[in-house]
């Protein structure tokens, strides 16, 4: 209820919406997107159709999302976010993506940013290999590229107050499975698909 309300508010404030939902309903999905602002995870999550949103957790930075009660509440109670430590490994020396693996085992979908960190000028950095490992470990995952535009202007790095500008989200069709595709080729293909959605002029259909 609160989650739906929050999602609606975010869609209203940033003007994002997803037109139609393709074949990817029901399966565990990995939504991966370019990263330009702290709003990114919130915006993708809000734009997803309700029944998918409730089954989707963003992968987010622990230091940012545990800073105050509001962020802790959103990441814990609303998002059920997977919080990762960015600096230094956890003490138990487990695999850095272990928390993500655990979440996928339960059948939930995730939102992830393969660039690893925000790109301040809105350009697309190289992808880290995390999403390739996910695909190797769970071959049945649906890999869905997402392009986000203008969010780095709505909330640039280092700013607190979001501007009421119009953002845009483009959800691409799932990446097809290519037999025997290597790591670099897969990452390049994934990155090119995300990049292709960043070219369009804002506000045009």
């Amino acid at each position, binding site marked *: 209820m609160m989650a739906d309300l929050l999602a609606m508010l975010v869609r209203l404030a940033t003007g994002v919406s997803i037109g139609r939902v393709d074949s990817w309903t029901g399966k565990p999905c990995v939504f991966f997107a370019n990263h330009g602002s702290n709003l990114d995870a919130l915006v993708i999550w809000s734009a997803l159709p309700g029944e998918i949103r409730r089954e989707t957790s963003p992968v987010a930075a622990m230091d940012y999302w545990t800073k105050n009660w509001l962020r802790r509440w959103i990441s814990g109670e609303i998002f059920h976010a997977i919080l990762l430590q960015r600096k230094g490994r956890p003490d138990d020396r487990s695999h850095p993506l272990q928390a993500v693996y655990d979440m996928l085992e339960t059948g939930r979908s995730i939102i992830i940013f393969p660039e690893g960190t925000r790109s301040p000028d809105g350009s697309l950095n190289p992808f880290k290999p995390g999403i390739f490992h996910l695909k190797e470990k769970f071959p049945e995952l649906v890999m869905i590229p997402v392009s986000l535009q203008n969010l780095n*202007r709505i909330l640039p790095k280092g700013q607190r107050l979001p501007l009421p500008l*119009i953002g845009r989200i483009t959800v691409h069709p799932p990446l097809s499975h290519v037999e025997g595709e290597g790591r670099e080729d897969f990452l390049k293909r994934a990155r090119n698909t995300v990049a292709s959605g960043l070219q369009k002029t804002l506000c*045009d259909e």
Partner: protein
Amino acid sequence: MNKEMIWMMAGVLALLVTASVAGWIMARRASSEKKASVENFNARTRSWWVMVGVFAVTLWFGHWTTVVLFCLISFLALREFITLNETKGCDHKVLCWCFFVLLPLQYFLVGIQWYGMASIFIPVYGFIFIPIRKVLTGETRDFLSTTAKIQWGMLTCVYFVSHMPMIMTLPIKGWSGGNGALLFFFVATVQSSDVFQYCWGKMTGKHKIAPKLSPNKTVEGTVGGIATTILLAVGMSYVTPFNPWQAALMALVICVAGFFGGLVMSAIKRDLGAKDWGNTIAGHGGVMDRIDSLCFAAPLFFHLTGFYFGTGMDPTPPDWVFGLFGK
């Protein structure tokens, strides 16, 4: 809401019902290649129902609700304007000031009827403030062009639009017809000019006026549309302080200003590579696509009416402002 207003609303209602029925018939008859065009017509009509409804309810409640409605319209228009005009990351702070402080403040000044301040606030104080706040960031790259874009956005989307609620409190010599009717006259004239130009253009349009700027505008559409609107304005003149001749002349001025307002905003939009300003209003595009003609016509209508029919508004602040600082 007085008797005249109810008659005018009834007229608008009749127009909307006609458009909806015509759209319904066309949709049933349309061949497959005309489907998209009819679909767009029907989307436009549906949006008109909503816009007319919101505007009527607002006018009915009076002065302050009108101020709030136009404040909201300005907010949405400025949002579209700044979204398409790629400002830089260093403009974040100054834009926050524009959206969250200058814009509401302008409408507050309109609301408290401090005419002397509201009519210069953005062109003087805003104009000075914007480059000052920007220079504090220390960024020199594209300084003038980004400053100018923000100032332009504030003038067209906020300052010009705020002249519409200002009509609500414009005191007029020897006339007590109610300013809501005057604002209604203005909005109805400019918007029906758009609609009639669209209809005449669709039916008889051949010679394009500005193929690069606005491919749908034709000589036949523009002339026919403006002529029809002038007739309509003469018909509405009895709810205004104007006699029929004055109403015709006033309609001509605001229709021409509106026409060029549409062309200017279209030129900006094309330069930025967009077809519409947004997609907030189904069938019409963005809020700016709907109000571009009102933007340029509103200050002209306000001032011309004020000069010739007004009592001369009081440029001094309301008494409580003096109370704050002592006099």
